[in-house]
C-alpha cells in the first residue's frame, strides 16, 4: 500500500482539485482529507458518512466563579493572555466583603480559544477554583465516497491541535486501506509548514507539491521542499496554472530540479477547473480540456514513480 500526500506551500493552489482528479483516475483508493481547517474534498467526492467520532484536542481551563476569590494569581501566571479580569464586582458577592462595601474584588475568566491547556493556573490556584475540562475540538468521519472509502474531519471553530487530528485521519485511512486490500491512499494535505503539514507528511511514501508560477510560489516551495527533506519523504512538484507566468514556471522547475526534486508536470490555466467545482465533479470527469489532459499526464507520471519506488 502506498500513501501519496498532496500539499502546497499555501492554500488555493489547486491542491484539492488535483487530488480529486487523482481519485477519479485511480482504480480504487482510500482518500483522506487532512486539510482539516478548510476541508473541501467532500464537495467533490460526495461522501456518505458511515461513522462519526468526536475528537478531543486537549483540555481547557475553566474558573468556577463560586470558588474564585479574585486573587488574580492565574492572570499573573498565564503566559498566553488567556485569563482576564471581568471587572469589579461587589466584594460580598466574591465571598468576603467589608461592611462599608468599600473593598471590591475582581473576578476572572478564561478565554477558551486562547487557553493552551497547560494547567499552570489550575495547579497554582490557591482557591482550587480552576478545573480542566476536555475540549471537543471537532469530529472525524469514515464515509463511502465516489471512488472508495474516505476519511475526513471537521474542526470546530478555533479548535486546537489540528496536527493531532491530521495524524488520526491518516492513520484511519491507512487502516481501512489495509483492511480492504486497497493499495493506494490519497491524502489531501494541509497548507503551510507548521504542525498540521508536519503531521500530514511524516511517514508518508510520497509527497506531491502543487505550486503556482508566482514569486510567492517560488518562495513557499523552498520552505516546503526543505520540510519534506527534513522528514525524509520523497517529493515531486507540479506547476499549476503554469501559463499564467511562463518565466516563473521555468524558474520553479529549475529550482526544483536543482534541489533534486523531480517535476511531475505542468497544468494549464483552465476555466474548466472552476466549472468542475461548481458541478461537484473533478476536472477529468467533465471533459477533456487542457487541465484535464494535463492532470492525467501528471497522475500517470506520479503513479509510475511511486510504483518504481516499490522495487
Amino acid at each position: 500500500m502506498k500513501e501519496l500526500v498532496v500539499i502546497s506551500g499555501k492554500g488555493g493552489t489547486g491542491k484539492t482539485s488535483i487530488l480529486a482528479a487523482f481519485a477519479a483516475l485511480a482504480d480504487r483508493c482510500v482518500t483522506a482529507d487532512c486539510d482539516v481547517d478548510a476541508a473541501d474534498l467532500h464537495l467533490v467526492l460526495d461522501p456518505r458518512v458511515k461513522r462519526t467520532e468526536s475528537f478531543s484536542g486537549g483540555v481547557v481551563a475553566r474558573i468556577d466563579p463560586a470558588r474564585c476569590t479574585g486573587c488574580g494569581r492565574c492572570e499573573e501566571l498565564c503566559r498566553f493572555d488567556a485569563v482576564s479580569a471581568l471587572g469589579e464586582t461587589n466584594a460580598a458577592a466574591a465571598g468576603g466583603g467589608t461592611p462599608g462595601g468599600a473593598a471590591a474584588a475582581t473576578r476572572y475568566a478564561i478565554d477558551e480559544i486562547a487557553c493552551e491547556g497547560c494547567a499552570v493556573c489550575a495547579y497554582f490556584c490557591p482557591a482550587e477554583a480552576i478545573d480542566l475540562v476536555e475540549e471537543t475540538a471537532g469530529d472525524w468521519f469514515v464515509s463511502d465516497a465516489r471512488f472508495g472509502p474516505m476519511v475526513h474531519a471537521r474542526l470546530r471553530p478555533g479548535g486546537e491541535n489540528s496536527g493531532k487530528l491530521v495524524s488520526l485521519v491518516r492513520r484511519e485511512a491507512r487502516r481501512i486501506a489495509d483492511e480492504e486490500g486497497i493499495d493506494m491512499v490519497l491524502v489531501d494535505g494541509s497548507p503551510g509548514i507548521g504542525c498540521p503539514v508536519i503531521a500530514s507528511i511524516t511517514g508518508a511514501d510520497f509527497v506531491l507539491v502543487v505550486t503556482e508560477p508566482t514569486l510567492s510560489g517560488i518562495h513557499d516551495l523552498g520552505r516546503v521542499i526543505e520540510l519534506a527533506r527534513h522528514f525524509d519523504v520523497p517529493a515531486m512538484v507540479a506547476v499549476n496554472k503554469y501559463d499564467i507566468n511562463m518565466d516563473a514556471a521555468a524558474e520553479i522547475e529549475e529550482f526544483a530540479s536543482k534541489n533534486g526534486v523531480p517535476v511531475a508536470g505542468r497544468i494549464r490555466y483552465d476555466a474548466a477547473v472552476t466549472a468542475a467545482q461548481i458541478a461537484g465533479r473533478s476536472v477529468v470527469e467533465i471533459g477533456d480540456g487542457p487541465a484535464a489532459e494535463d492532470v492525467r499526464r501528471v497522475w500517470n507520471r506520479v503513479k509510475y514513480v511511486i510504483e518504481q519506488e516499490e522495487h
Partner: protein
Amino acid sequence: MRIAIASGKGGTGKTTIATNLAAVAAAAGRRSTYVDCDVEEPNGHIFLKPEIDRSEPVTMLMPVVDEALCTACGECGRICRFKAITLILDRVLTFHELCHACGGCALVCPVRAITERPREVGVLESGTARTAGGAEVGFLHGTLNVKEAMAPPVIRAVKREIPADGLVIVDAPPGASCSMVESVRGADRVILVTEPTPFGLNDLAIAVETVRTMGFEPGVVVNRDGAGDDRVDRWCDEKGIGILARIPDDRTVAEAYSRGELPVDAVPGFRARIEALLAVLDETGSAPGAAPGDDRTSDAEVTE
C-alpha cells in the same frame, strides 16, 4: 483602526487585498501599516518590497535542568501536559519541540533546578515600504523557522509590535484554527476574502463561524467575481453579512500577482476598487458589525 484580513483557505486573495489596501491608504496621505501574521508563508514583502531596518529573533522560553540540583522528584513531568519534560529512570529529559513554554515546570520544581532560556523559533522584521508614488507604508512581519511547529508564539511577537495609531492592516493566516484566531484577536474589524465557488463558500462559512464565535461580525470581499456562480451572494444575504467589495475575475490580476506587482499599480481600474473598499471601511467605522446597508450607513445617507 486595526483591520484583520482573513479567509477560510489560502489563495483567495487575502494578501492582495491587504497589501493594496495598505498602499492605497498610504497614497492618500494616511499613516498605514501592513502586518503579515501569516508566519508560515509570509508573502506580503514580495509585493510591498519593504526596506527592512530591524530584524530580531523570536524566542520561546525553554526549560533547562541543572542536573546537579535535580533530586529526580518528578514534579516537572507531572505538571507538564505536553510531555515536553519527563523523568526517565532518574534523569529528567526535555523535548523542546513539544514545549509550549508555559513555565509550569520551572515554577513547580521544589529545588529550583529548572531555569528557562530562550530558544529561537522565528524572526521578526520591520521596516518601511514605498508605494509607486513614494508614500510610506509601515511594514511588519514574522517568519516561523522551518521545522518549527508552533506559529502562535511568532504571531504574538509580531502583534506586540503593532503601532497603536493609524490604519493597521493585519494579513491573517488562512484557516480557522489557532493561528488565524491569534492573528484576528484584538482587531477592530474583520474582513473575509472569498471566491464565488463551492470551495469558496464552504471555507467562508467556517471562517464566519469562527470569527463570530470570537465576537466579530465580519464583512466579505468577493474576489474573482464572475468566475463562479452566485452562491456566496445568496448565502451572505441569508446570513445578513455585508459584501464590502467585489474584485472582478481578471487574468491580468493573477499575472501581476505572479510577477510580485501590486495590482493597484499594474492593473487598470483596480485602484478604484480598493479605494472604494477603503471608503466603505471608513464610512462604516470601526464598529465590528457595521456594514453597508445597516442602520448606521442609512442614517448617514439620510443626514447627507
